[in-house]
């Protein structure tokens, strides 16, 4: 089915050979080592998981429409939000941009033929699918009720769901993540075209590079934490068991040592995407290129040192809380730098409001709110007040959904012509982008308010005074669901009926736009040579309405 749906070049012979026409059989897709085809395979898999996680979210929002627990049992509700968390975090958000857009674009952007290890790339997809099968088994066997956090002793001693299968699925998915991370790092180090120096890399590539470092160093710690949980539950080894002197807090330390950096695993790729969109649709160089790079590097390092802010009420020492609180403020600085720099990129730009730009602007707004409320949670007194309330739920959904998913949709629209060779319908896309912003705001803003009023998370019934907020959130979720489904419909439509895209429909800079759409199997007819930095949308001094020269700014080695 996929090879028919993704074949935009019929009739044959009219268009140059593309990676899509390189083979038409299912076998040619399942044995491909072409990074572009593997990206498509990942996209299909992720779409499926996005649906599964979305159905779980729909169940949650339906249940919460009324204060009483009527649709689901208490246990069923626990299983629904665990399913939502596990699937959305590990089977959608963590892999999302790196394995699809990253896989597709990094070799193109650096002027390479393929990833450094093409067969490892394919293997990572099969590992991911194996993990997906385990996850599907977990669901079919009745699910699991530990929450996505797998806290012990709940997960090891008391839960009666399929903890082993669920933890095993996440464990296996980790190998796929690590393989992708190793591959991206090695590709960016070794496959750059002549002249593509480190400070000429598009920021999307920097996003992929820094996220890969976080993936490679954080994921194994989660793997070990889950392995120890499985050993305790499955083999009866007392690892975290307090009855034998074990310490459940140590599990929390291991878990959050991964899961805080996991937030950056989800958001660093978005930073890269947004930098590409903002520059293209403001027709501007990025403001402060080098600072954007250092900000990402800073995040990927300091992001490893702040996990304790998830444990302020777990009984950690108050001195540790103090240090973790301080470091959590420190890690917010580079995110703020990025928001300021995107905003300054608009300054004196020729701003166009194509759909990808609308997604980017929505991202900047929602990410800013998510980041600022993160500072609330980084300060211990406020955190103690709102721990385990909907305030926290709202905060991280602003980052992961308002941020990462908006960026994913924005990037998907932006590179859709390159990936498929077809243009999407612009009016529908703008409508979907605006709808996504408002649907998101209606869903999650009420959660800040009710969270601050004390509505705890993970309850399937609640006092009637919170109903108005829950009804608002559930109604917003309906809009949001529509805004997610609509692009799937018109993007699928465009595969057959969309207008053909030229090589560079956005007049964007970047090597990926210099080859044909869709690209040929080996990406470039001749090896590209790079002589300038990224985002040279117009030479200095010749920008429209620019009486005076561009402000001097450091941007790698510009000509």
């Amino acid at each position, binding site marked *: 089915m996929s090879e028919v749906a993704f074949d935009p070049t019929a009739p044959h012979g009219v268009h140059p050979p593309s990676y899509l026409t390189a083979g038409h059989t299912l076998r040619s897709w399942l044995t491909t080592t072409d990074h572009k085809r593997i990206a498509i395979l990942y996209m299909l898999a992720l779409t499926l998981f996005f649906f599964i996680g979305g159905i779980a979210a729909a169940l949650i929002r339906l249940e919460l429409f009324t204060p009483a627990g009527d649709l689901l049992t208490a246990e069923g509700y626990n299983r629904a939000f665990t399913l939502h968390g596990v699937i959305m975090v590990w089977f959608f958000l963590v892999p999302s941009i790196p394995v699809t857009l990253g896989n597709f674009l990094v070799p193109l952007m650096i002027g*390479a033929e393929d990833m*450094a290890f093409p067969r490892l790339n394919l293997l990572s997809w099969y590992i991911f699918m194996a993990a997906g099968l385990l996850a599907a088994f977990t669901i079919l066997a009745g699910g699991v009720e530990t929450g996505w956090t797998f806290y012990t002793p709940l997960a090891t001693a008391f839960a009666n769901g399929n903890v082993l299968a669920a933890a095993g699925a996440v464990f296996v998915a980790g190998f796929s993540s*690590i393989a992708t991370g190793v*591959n991206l790092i*090695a590709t960016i180090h070794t496959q750059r075209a002549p002249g593509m120096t480190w400070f000429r890399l598009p920021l999307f590539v920097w996003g992929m590079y820094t996220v890969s470092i976080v993936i490679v160093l954080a994921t194994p710690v989660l793997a070990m934490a889950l392995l120890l949980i499985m050993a305790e539950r499955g083999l009866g080894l007392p*690892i975290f068991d307090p009855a*034998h*002197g074990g310490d459940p807090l140590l599990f929390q330390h291991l878990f959050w040592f991964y899961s805080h950096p996991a937030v950056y695993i989800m958001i660093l790729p978005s930073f890269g995407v947004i930098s590409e969109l903002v520059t293209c649709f403001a027709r501007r160089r990025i403001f402060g290129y080098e600072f954007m790079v250092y900000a990402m590097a800073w995040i990927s390092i300091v992001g490893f040192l702040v996990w304790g802010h998830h444990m302020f009420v777990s009984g950690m020492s108050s001195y540790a809380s103090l240090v973790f609180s301080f470091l959590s403020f420190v890690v917010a600085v580079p995110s703020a730098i990025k928001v300021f720099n995107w905003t300054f990129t608009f300054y004196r730009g020729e701003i166009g409001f194509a759909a990808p730009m609308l997604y980017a602007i929505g991202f900047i707004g929602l990410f800013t709110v998510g980041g600022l409320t993160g500072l609330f949670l980084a300060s211990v007194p406020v955190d103690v007040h709102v721990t385990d309330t909907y305030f926290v739920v709202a905060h991280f959904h602003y980052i992961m959904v308002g941020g990462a998913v908006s960026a994913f949709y924005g990037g998907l629209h932006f590179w859709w012509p390159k990936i498929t060779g077809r243009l999407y319908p612009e009016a529908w896309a703008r409508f979907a982008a605006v709808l996504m912003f408002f649907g998101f705001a209606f869903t999650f803003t009420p959660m800040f308010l009710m969270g601050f009023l004390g509505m705890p998370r993970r309850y399937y019934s609640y006092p009637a005074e919170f109903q108005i907020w829950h009804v608002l959130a559930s109604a917003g979720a309906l809009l949001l669901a529509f805004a997610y489904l609509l692009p799937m419909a018109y993007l699928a439509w465009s595969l057959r009926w969309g207008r053909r895209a030229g090589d560079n429909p956005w007049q964007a800079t970047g090597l990926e736009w210099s080859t044909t759409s869709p690209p040929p199997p080996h990406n470039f007819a001749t090896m590209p040579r790079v002589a300038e930095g990224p985002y040279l949308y117009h030479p200095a001094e010749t920008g429209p309405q620019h009486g005076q020269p561009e402000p001097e700014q450091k941007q790698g080695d510009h000509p």
Partner: protein
Amino acid sequence: MSQAHPALREPWRSLHRQRQGASFGIWVFLASEVMFFAGALMVFGMLRLQHPAGFLAAARATDIWFGSVNTAVLLTSSLTMAVASQAAEAGLRRLALRCLGITALLGLAFLVVKGFEYRADILGGLVPGPTFRLEEPAAQLFFGFYWALTGVHAVHLTIGIVAVAGLAWRGWRGTLPLASPAFEVTALYWHLVDLVWVFLYPLLYLPGRSG
């Protein structure tokens, strides 16, 4: 560099770059492996600080003979693995294949010795649970880690043995050129598995023996 070299794969343009890239890639992966074991060792270290007496008593109950023999076996295997990797690079086919064979056999020997040790542990009441023999409060905790850590190490070693044996087989059949980066990559992985044991041995077998 010859474009037609049988060991050259896409997307690499020269064998030299390919070797550099493969070795760089495995180093990145080994960094990941280090973090994997570091997580468990951190937890182990914290618990040992909390329960010094129980952990020392439990460590004394491990069989230091099995542990020490296995340490010697594994260190020797790293030597033969290093020789095999260097010999492959230098094009010394017979030496490379012979050393690969010895490495795989030493790895197997480790697993056999470990198997006998596990058998003795099980019979000696060192499996956490109702039949556990030691009285000290945290001793079961120690043995929880003993089984988990040595088990994970054994899985790593098994993967290593399969990889080394695969190299030897393909090298012997002539389907894998000696210039392939696979030799160095496998060797680096093998050394890491060895290195993990170098940490596990003093942490699990040696404490509590001096007093």
